[in-house]
């Protein structure tokens, strides 16, 4: 049995992942902003078979609290085996272009708070010489695009940070997984028109749990996004800059 920490546990993808782990009888630790919502998830995970579930309330934008909360968590629940980072916001590109405060807020959540929590987790796992950190970034990290480069830039930062961290921790035997979901049908994308490429949170969650089990370095979920992004990355910029992606 593993103890799994989920950071940003009320996100739709995170919740599906937690359900899969609950079905395996694991212990789950949930971090999130809304304690009521965490408790709703906790009830569900307990019915589904989780060995134990613990909830901790935190505003992840307040980076200074990350280290303290991890200390408090470990004191209460014991050692963590797997940590998954799943929080994030999808800023409206147009608003971000016109309003720096809005842009900074999204960069803060999607990059700085990632960098902070990744560092805190790395410092926890490194001396223990075991464990897994899984960081949910995005296919948007792979190339800056006109329609959502503010989101893409923050995710690219988080992605590079995750990859670099893997190098740092490889000597200590700690695995770092960079998870790049494609388009997912979640409340974050509720206002989008859904095409064939949209996957359900359930499908994405099972891809993520599998990638963690197999100690992958980078996992595109669903897997066909590896091919799609390979093609998108190879389009010459002279052409790409004229597209509306």
């Amino acid at each position, binding site marked *: 049995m593993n103890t799994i920490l989920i950071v940003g546990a009320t996100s*739709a993808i995170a919740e599906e992942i937690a359900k899969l782990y609950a079905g395996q009888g694991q212990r789950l630790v949930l971090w999130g902003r809304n304690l*009521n*919502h965490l408790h*709703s*998830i906790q*009830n*569900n995970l307990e*019915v*589904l078979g989780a060995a134990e579930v613990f909830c901790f309330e935190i505003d992840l934008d307040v980076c200074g609290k990350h280290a303290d909360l991890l200390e408090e968590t470990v004191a209460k629940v014991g050692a963590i085996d797997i940590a998954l980072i799943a929080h994030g916001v999808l800023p409206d590109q147009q608003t971000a272009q016109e309003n720096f405060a809005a842009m900074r807020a999204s960069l803060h959540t999607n990059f700085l708070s990632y960098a902070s929590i990744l560092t805190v987790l790395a410092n926890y796992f490194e001396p223990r010489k075991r464990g897994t950190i899984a960081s949910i970034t995005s296919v948007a990290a792979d190339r800056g695009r006109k329609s959502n480069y503010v989101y893409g830039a923050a995710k690219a930062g988080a992605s590079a940070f995750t990859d670099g961290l893997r190098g740092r921790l490889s000597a200590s035997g700690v695995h770092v997984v960079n998870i790049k979901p494609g388009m997912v049908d979640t*409340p974050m994308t*509720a206002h989008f*028109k*859904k095409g064939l490429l949209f996957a359900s949170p359930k499908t994405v969650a099972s891809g993520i749990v599998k990638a963690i089990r197999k100690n992958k370095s980078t996992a595109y979920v669903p897997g066909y996004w590896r091919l799609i992004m390979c093609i998108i990355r190879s389009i010459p910029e002279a052409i790409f800059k004229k597209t509306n992606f």
Partner: protein
Amino acid sequence: MNRCQSWGRYPKAVQEIRPVRWRDTTVPNSGDKSILPYGLGRSYGDSCLNDGQALLETSGMNRFIAFDETSGILRCEAGMSLDDILKLIVPKGWFLPTTPGTKFITVGGAIANDIHGKNHHISGTFGCHVRAFELLRSDGNRTLCTPESNTDLFKATIGGLGLTGLITWAEFGLKKVGNAWIDLESIKFTGIGEFLELSKESDEGWEYTVSWIDCVAQGKSMGRGIFMRGNHSPASVLSRKVHADPKITALFDCPDMMLNSLSIKVFNTVYYGKQRTKYVRSRVHYDPFFYPLDAVNEWNRVYGKRGFFQYQFVIPFNGGKETMEAILRIIAASKQGSFLSVIKTFGKKVSPGMLSFPKPGITLALDFPNRGESTLKLFDELDTVVAAAGGSVYPAKDARMSADFFQKAYPQWRDFSEFIDPKFSSSFWRRVTTGS
């Protein structure tokens, strides 16, 4: 946005979609637009639509709250699907108190439509098994409704078509089973008279009864079909294997021409003929027994872009045989008959629901490809016969009945409308109350 449609894909509706994920939510402000809860969209007609207005999409509010494995009492959020419930309860030796022909519906939808199943003659409707639910109104009030407290709202909400407010969670009792299997007997019958005799004879000893009927056959073959009766397999059978997710998806809309009177006739003849002997006994898993069509994701696309109608009605036993025969004659003569027509008798168990559809008598459910005017005309003709027999049509499956017919068949609608949340409405409700 056109993401939320009804299962028959007729009529088409456009509405603002507001996902609801948390049971501590307040009803989202939709400005001057009315709202309606929308679960998994398995209602066939327009009772799950709110054209030009807004929908509260509840399928993300789908968490278990508590499950007592000793008493079989389950409490969960209203967007929870029967599919997910079965995956939890079957391995622990429990089953749904009653279930419709698809497991892809929500608990909220099961209550709002007061759904029935093959065990209606013994167990009544879903509403008969509901012990409590919380109803959230647009003014922010939360009411705990049970058979003993807030009884009026409890009764109005069961079968209340989602109009009385948003059900956030519900608690209901399950049925104890030893395994995941059903012992099934299939018996060929040659007419409505024989069907009724078989029903009567099976009502006591058989928990599940349902029949497929050939609604295309005319003359001497009219009313032929296959009567199916089942019981949960005895405790000596141990497997509690859960159903698998559907492996096949209908990826495109089939051409409208595919379901024509010839292909329907061939299908019905082959279906009747494939069982060679009068009696066949078998042991089947609950999944193909209760949910044969769930094997194909989005099977409704087989009916093409124009969609299809379901027509389900109930008529009293008294004079039922003659009425049913008259109806079969009309359908056969129309050459619009349906593939899977299902006939069953309802029992006497009374549901708490004010607007519930089932009542003692014979119910027939048919699907018809949408052929426009001629199909609508056929339904009007059927309505006349059903109305004359004192029967009614099932709102969850309806897309077209007249306001006049609805109000005569459900005279309690005026009393019911006192309980409607002032911000809630639906395409169906506007159609059958104001005729627009």
